[in-house]
């Protein structure tokens, strides 16, 4: 069997004495959209940050096309083609909207995403391109954060709660854009609080509960009660 695009093999993560992840196993195959759900504090963000190389305390547990990448720095992970849309957007306040996008593509990886493509996806950003990124609305900032990750032309994009704090109409807009984003060789792993949304856009779903995988299944066919149980642990 060929190696998965990304696999986590018994991933643990710690913040000092506190253990946030316990032996997480997970696989992402090329072209998939994988959803990760779980209550607040379940460890979703910790998992994405581990993959992106921001925590670096699990050298062997994270594999990219079969290679262990857990010891790499975040910039080396980015160079492999893994991009993170971080929780809370985390745009660069000193950079304009356009500069935020350009810096996302500064590794120069080849692929379908370019400034015009991102502006096509989010036309409002083109109008606002010379503005300070912090002067945008929350939803517009989220578009910049997504665009910035796409500009890297990644093979895998990790999205952490891209709908948090956004109006439903904006969320719909962003998720309607997702099928156009995935495909063309892009694979996505999305962390989402809105379970229905997560299930509707993904093929497979994982649920985390207190740092452990509590459920894994096909998004279309997992029974609702099982998800509720895995999510709340009742």
């Amino acid at each position, binding site marked *: 069997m060929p190696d998965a695009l990304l696999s986590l093999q018994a991933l643990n993560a710690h913040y000092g004495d506190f253990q946030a992840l316990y032996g997480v196993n997970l696989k992402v195959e090329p072209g998939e959209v994988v959803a990760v759900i779980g209550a607040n504090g379940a460890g979703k963000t910790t998992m994405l940050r581990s993959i992106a190389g921001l925590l670096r305390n699990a050298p062997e547990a994270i594999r990219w096309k079969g290679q262990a990448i857990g010891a790499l720095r*975040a*910039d080396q992970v980015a160079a492999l083609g893994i*991009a993170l849309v971080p929780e809370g957007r985390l745009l*660069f306040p*000193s950079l304009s909207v356009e500069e935020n996008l350009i810096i996302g593509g*500064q590794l120069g990886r080849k692929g379908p995403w370019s400034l015009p493509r991102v502006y096509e996806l989010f036309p409002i950003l083109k109008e606002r391109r010379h503005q*300070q990124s912090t002067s945008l609305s929350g939803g517009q900032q989220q578009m910049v954060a997504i665009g*910035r990750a796409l500009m890297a032309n990644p093979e895998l994009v990790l999205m952490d709660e891209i709908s948090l704090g956004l109006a439903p109409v904006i969320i719909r807009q962003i998720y309607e854009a997702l099928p156009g984003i995935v495909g063309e060789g892009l694979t996505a792993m999305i962390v989402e609080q809105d379970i229905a949304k997560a299930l509707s856009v993904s093929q497979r779903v994982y649920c985390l509960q207190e740092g452990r995988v509590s459920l894994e299944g096909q998004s279309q066919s997992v029974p609702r009660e099982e998800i509720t149980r895995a999510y709340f642990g009742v």
Partner: protein
Amino acid sequence: MDWLNAILQGTLLGGLYALFAAGLSLIFGVMRLVNIAHGDLIVLSAYVALSFGVSLGLNPLVALLLVVPSMALIGYALQRLILNRTMGEDLLPPLLVTFGLSVILQNVLLMGYSADPQNLQAGTIETASVNLGPVAVGVMPVLVFITAVVVIAALQWMFYRTALGRAFRATSDRQDVAQLMGLNRAHVFGLAMALSLAVTALAGVFLGIRTAFDPAAGGARLIFGFEAVIIGGLGNLWGTLAGGVILGVAQTLGAKIDPGYQILAGHIVFLIILALRPRGLFPRIDG
């Protein structure tokens, strides 16, 4: 006429102070590092120029072609090999390391060159002057001032118009997210220190041509640079030039009243501005 002359001389002196300050400001802006060894690195640059002058028989202004890249290399190596190991959430460890570096540099220079004051001999350009209306000004101070303006303009352009500047600003904003963009923080910091010491090389050579220097001369230069940065407003490069000029004018006017007041007058103006405008005269406005 004397007063006008003093103001003019002070303004030109401000160019030198802006060169002291620009490297300091750059480093603080990109990585929140207060480089206590900055003054000693300025003096080191003067000694490097002196050595090139002795060994290769180069005029110090020509030696700049070698001193600038040498200091840039030293800066990159210093950052990658030593300072990066101490950079983190806490601003104190790197500050202490640069303090230690300051002591080490002074002692190494003392061993290598002795405590005797040295001078860089630039030839007839040192005494040449031009008439600006009613007053005569030295060619060297004018050259230094023009260099300062060009350096500040170039840094400004680099910061806001180039990929390197974008990387500096992004890393300054959020180091971890910049790393996610594929920027290696250690390398970006190395480049910032290289650039800072390249400017320092100019400052050191101009200092050495203007006055005698010895291994202990760095402390005062650090303070002048620091004062110029604070007066101008942290993170504002043109403000740094203005800060240098204000400091320079304060000093020459002080000296006009009484030669003993030169340095004191600068410090007093600095303190007044700090008390009235703690963020400097021109606090950072982006763009």
